[in-house]
């Protein structure tokens, strides 16, 4: 680590519509370090990244790279300076092929024309380092969010001559993928790159980071070397207060298991999506769903919520036959579904926070029975407070909220419908520790009130904390179900491994 | 018997519909197999149609060209294929050996007849004329304007004070007339209206009435085409004169074609149809009854 910082930013200021998202923030990055950037949802992490890489123009402050002032006007400028970035939302182009995404703007050329063959060959080599054996000439759209995220990382890594910035790159990656990513990050660090890493997973911070910088409400709280930092200190830096419940563990409650069956799916499946499975969910029960990438978790949820139609099997609710021909029908029966891809399937970005929160409730009531404005406001305020959604006011278009806060808005949308059966696909993706604990507590409270939950999550630690039972999926098949005392991280890992030893070994 | 391809411009007005109807009728009467192609107002479609007729091997082609220019090539192809072409209602800017004959009226002459009528009607009185032009750039609009201006030139008492396009439609005719009336002192300064077709005149007549003036007397109305509705207006005293453009262009065309096919008689290069002037004196109701069922 040299003394001269690789990248340094001084007194960066940026405001949106009069609201200060960054207030004289300083930030330094040395060559050969992994620097974690932490903070609650809406603290200004993504904004800082965007300012540094020219995606936003800053209102004030100064940026230096290798001691020379730089002023990237757009992302292209930053790329040319050797700064590669993965922005928070997976920002690739699903309509291009994987290879085209990797090489957009710097395609290998022969005789002035793009050399597709060379491009595909090199893509295959690059992706192999990430353990991804996919066909680079296939459209990116044909792959899951996780795969897209890996491709985005691979692109940024390949672009970064000096600095690599990763904004929540691991949100939908599983343990094995994260390991692969960290190996690559370490080797880049050893080659002398500076790496900025944003995450909400503390484990990852302590595993990989050399220093951390914490932001709170757009202001710099401090930068510390990781060695001298305790977990609990970090949390209080972020929150500005102590978090007692953060580690709250819960023994799966007995009442959940004993509750009467609420929904039952028998031999439910769809060819090419998920093989037929049986699933019963009792009142007040949390069923966790674990599995590797592309194991069919999301697709299971889509079947259960009526987005996809099954070609075999039956569903019952309270012992009565049930057809789930559309999400609308599922909702009418008291179902809810927080999708994994919040940008595409979740938020309605031009509408306000209030409208986003009441959307599902209003849709269920029908257009002819509008919720009175006062009631809408009351509902919105209630959830803004309950979930600690950071927004200047409830009429702000939801697109101006930070990623994690958008996630909470969608959760609020479903809670507002007071569902009997709620499906959460990666509910804690991109959510900060405080909110994370909040959401887990909320999940527990909801089941205590008799709501049934199906939670899909890549974080096994989290999953085993609140699940009464855990379904394990692999290769689009339900391969195991663990319940009661058997719900432990290692048991889940083993179940996955039993099916696919190679992947679990990683 | 004969197969004849007919490339019609489109169906943009009642007059055009009548021409189509009459052509079909005439063909039927003579036992001619008529292939009809509507070009939707586009020259390129007409060229395509003529080419397709050639490819099909028809015996003759009737062409009502949407515009005068741009026919040399395709007419050349027809000539190569030895298919005679007869032009209907408008001529083309092409060497006249490329077509058999043209059956048309003289658009400039029509405007001239209308202008002449107005000049005679007003005598020495000062007369401010407003003009409703056809679609900007179309040949009837250009020629009918030219003919009218020729007729009134030299008569300093008659002058055009306002001229706008009414796109040959009733709606626009009415809308434009409304603004003419406002711009010219509520219509009190307007002595006559000249419309490039009857449809616009019919629309304008309504505008004049709604402005509280009497069309036909407060404001003279002269237009061109002689479609049935204008005769009704004339019968009511709301229109003064119209110049007929006969929709029966096909009759003379088929006559010429049949003679040519029978013994090779070359018809004259230009068969001009009459541009007859109708006024209120010509028993408009009777003409209306005659014309009513011609497919206008």
């Amino acid at each position, binding site marked *: 680590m040299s003394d001269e910082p690789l990248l340094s930013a001084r007194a960066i200021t940026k405001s949106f519509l009069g609201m200060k998202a960054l207030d004289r923030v300083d930030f330094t990055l040395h060559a050969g370090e992994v620097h974690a950037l932490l903070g609650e949802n809406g603290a200004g992490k993504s904004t800082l990244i965007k300012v540094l890489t020219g995606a936003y123009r800053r209102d004030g402050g100064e940026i230096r790279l290798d001691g020379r002032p730089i002023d990237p006007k757009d992302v292209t400028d930053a790329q040319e300076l050797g700064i590669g970035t993965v922005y928070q939302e997976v920002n690739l182009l699903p309509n291009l092929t994987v290879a085209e995404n990797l090489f957009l703007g710097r395609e290998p050329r022969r005789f002035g024309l793009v050399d597709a063959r060379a491009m595909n060959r090199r893509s295959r080599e690059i992706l192999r380092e990430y353990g991804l054996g996919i066909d680079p000439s296939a459209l990116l759209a044909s792959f899951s969010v996780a795969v897209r995220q890996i491709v985005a990382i691979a692109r940024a890594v390949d672009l970064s001559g000096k600095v690599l910035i990763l904004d929540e790159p691991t949100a939908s990656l599983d343990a094995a993928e994260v390991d692969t990513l960290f190996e690559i990050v370490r080797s880049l660090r050893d080659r002398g790159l500076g790496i900025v890493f944003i995450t909400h997973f503390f484990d990852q911070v302590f595993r990989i980071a050399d220093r951390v910088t914490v932001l709170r409400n757009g202001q710099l709280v401090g930068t510390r070397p990781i060695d001298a930092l305790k977990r609990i200190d970090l949390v209080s830096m972020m929150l500005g207060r102590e978090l007692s419940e953060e580690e709250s563990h819960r023994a799966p409650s007995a009442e959940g298991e004993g509750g009467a069956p609420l929904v039952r799916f028998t031999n439910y499946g769809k060819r090419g999506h998920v093989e037929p499975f049986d699933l019963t969910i009792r009142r007040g029960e949390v069923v966790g769903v674990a599995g590797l990438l592309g194991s069919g978790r999301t697709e299971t949820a889509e079947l259960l919520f009526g987005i996809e139609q099954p070609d075999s099997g039956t569903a019952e609710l309270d012992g009565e036959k049930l057809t789930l021909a559309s999400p609308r029908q599922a909702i009418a029966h008291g179902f809810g579904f927080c999708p994994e891809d919040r940008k595409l399937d979740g938020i309605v970005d031009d509408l306000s926070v209030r409208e986003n929160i009441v959307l599902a409730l209003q849709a269920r009531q029908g257009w002819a029975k509008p919720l009175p404005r006062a009631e809408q406001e009351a509902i919105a305020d209630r959830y803004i407070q309950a979930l600690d959604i950071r927004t200047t006011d409830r009429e702000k278009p939801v697109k101006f909220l930070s990623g994690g806060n958008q996630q909470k808005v969608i959760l609020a949308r479903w809670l507002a419908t007071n569902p009997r059966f709620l499906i959460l696909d990666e509910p804690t993706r991109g959510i900060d520790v405080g909110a994370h604990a909040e959401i887990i507590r909320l999940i527990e409270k909801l089941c205590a009130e008799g709501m049934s939950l199906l939670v899909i999550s890549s974080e096994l630690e989290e999953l085993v904390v609140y699940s009464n039972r855990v379904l394990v999926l692999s290769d689009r098949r339900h391969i195991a179900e663990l319940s009661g005392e058997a719900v432990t991280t290692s048991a889940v890992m083993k179940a996955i491994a039993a099916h696919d030893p190679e992947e679990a070994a990683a | 018997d004969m197969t004849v391809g007919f490339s019609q411009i489109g169906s943009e007005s009642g007059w055009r519909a009548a021409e189509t109807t009459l052509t079909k009728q005439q063909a039927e009467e003579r036992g001619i197999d008529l292939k009809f192609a509507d070009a939707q107002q586009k020259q390129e479609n007409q060229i395509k149609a003529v080419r397709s007729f050639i490819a099909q091997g028809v015996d003759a082609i009737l062409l009502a060209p949407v515009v005068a220019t741009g026919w040399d090539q395709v007419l050349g192809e027809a000539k190569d294929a030895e298919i005679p072409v007869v032009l209907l209602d408008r001529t083309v800017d092409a060497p006249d050996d490329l077509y058999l004959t043209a059956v048309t009226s003289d658009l400039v002459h029509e405007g001239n007849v209308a202008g002449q009528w107005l000049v005679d009607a007003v005598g020495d009185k000062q007369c401010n004329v407003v003009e409703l032009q056809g679609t900007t750039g179309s040949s009837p609009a250009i020629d009918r304007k030219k003919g009218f201006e020729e007729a009134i030139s030299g008569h300093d008492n008659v002058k055009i004070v306002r001229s706008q396009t009414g796109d040959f439609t009733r709606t626009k005719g009415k809308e*434009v007339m409304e603004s003419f009336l*406002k711009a010219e002192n509520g219509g009190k300064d307007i002595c006559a209206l000249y419309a490039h077709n009857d449809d616009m005149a019919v629309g304008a007549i309504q505008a004049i009435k709604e402005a509280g003036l009497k069309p036909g007397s407060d404001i003279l109305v002269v237009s061109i085409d002689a479609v049935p509705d204008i005769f009704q207006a004339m019968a009511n005293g709301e229109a003064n004169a119209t110049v007929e453009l006969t929709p029966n262009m096909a009759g003379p065309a088929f006559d010429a074609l049949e003679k040519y096919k029978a013994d090779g008689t070359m018809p004259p290069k230009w068969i001009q149809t009459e541009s007859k002037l109708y006024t209120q004196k010509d028993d408009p109701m009777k003409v209306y009854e005659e014309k009513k069922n011609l497919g206008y």
Partner: protein
Amino acid sequence: MTQRLLPGLARLAPQLVALAVILALCAAISPGFFDVSVQNGRLYGSIIDVLNRGAPVALLAIGMTLVIATKGIDLSVGAVMAITGAVAAAMITSGYGIVLTLAGALGVGVLCGLWNGALVAVLAIQPIIATLILMVAGRGIAQLITEGVILTFNDPTLIFFGSGHIFGVPMPILLWIMLGALVVLVVRTSALGMLIEAVGTNRRASMLAGVGTTFLLFSVYAASGLCAGVAGIIAAADIRGADANNAGLWLELDAILAVVIGGTSLLGGRFSIIGSLIGAMIIQSVNTGILLSGFPPEFNLIIKAAIIVVILVVQSPSSREAMAFFTRKREPATEPRKERAVS
């Protein structure tokens, strides 16, 4: 209600300013522009003409706004006008009563809208193309009904819708104002407005939230068909005949223009019907102004293009930023282009 109305009006400020400027220009060209007198018991004057002649575009713009709010577009409205006008003329001349005639014509308009809705919502054909089909075929259908001629009629009640008046106010003006008010009322007092905006902003997310997207799409296209139906009847009644060839020709473009000038984005989502109505009046003022100006018709298109460009430039987010920049020196609130990058 008033608290919410005021910011709404503030949002329409650019449109209102544009309208005021254009009207002022008209008055400069034609001194008597604002004079209103009573002629035959009917209000009479250039400004009345603007309101009256703007009726078809205003009516079309009402439906078009809803369609555009769902991220759609309806190119068929001009043709639907021709069809409904033809149906009305055909029915009234063959002796059906005025009530049946109106019901028939409006019913056909709604039917056309439902057809478009089916193509868009059920067959998932892209709106531009789905409605292009009816745009092409519809005029043919109208001509089929009238057999290519102008089908004239003399029924006084039907004519009343075009050139009649109540308390001196011409019927077309009353109709577009009333229909506009009605639609605004329905859309804003029910949840329709919000649901339409949701569908237009993110159709998939709305579907997943249980919004009946299919129903909404059918409704907006049907509404557009209905509005086109009313416009078609007015257009026919105005000239006492159904001109299948020319009724509503190219008016779809004017209607879309009105919606955009009115501040509704072609990308769907937030919409303002009042804005669109103002937009329609802006367009008509330009048209009437051109007619009053006495310029030769060759200039019409250039003038229109220039005015559109000026209006849009003034309204565009970038220049609003620039203006804010110059008025409130050195306080650049946001970076417009980059803002879009995250939206």
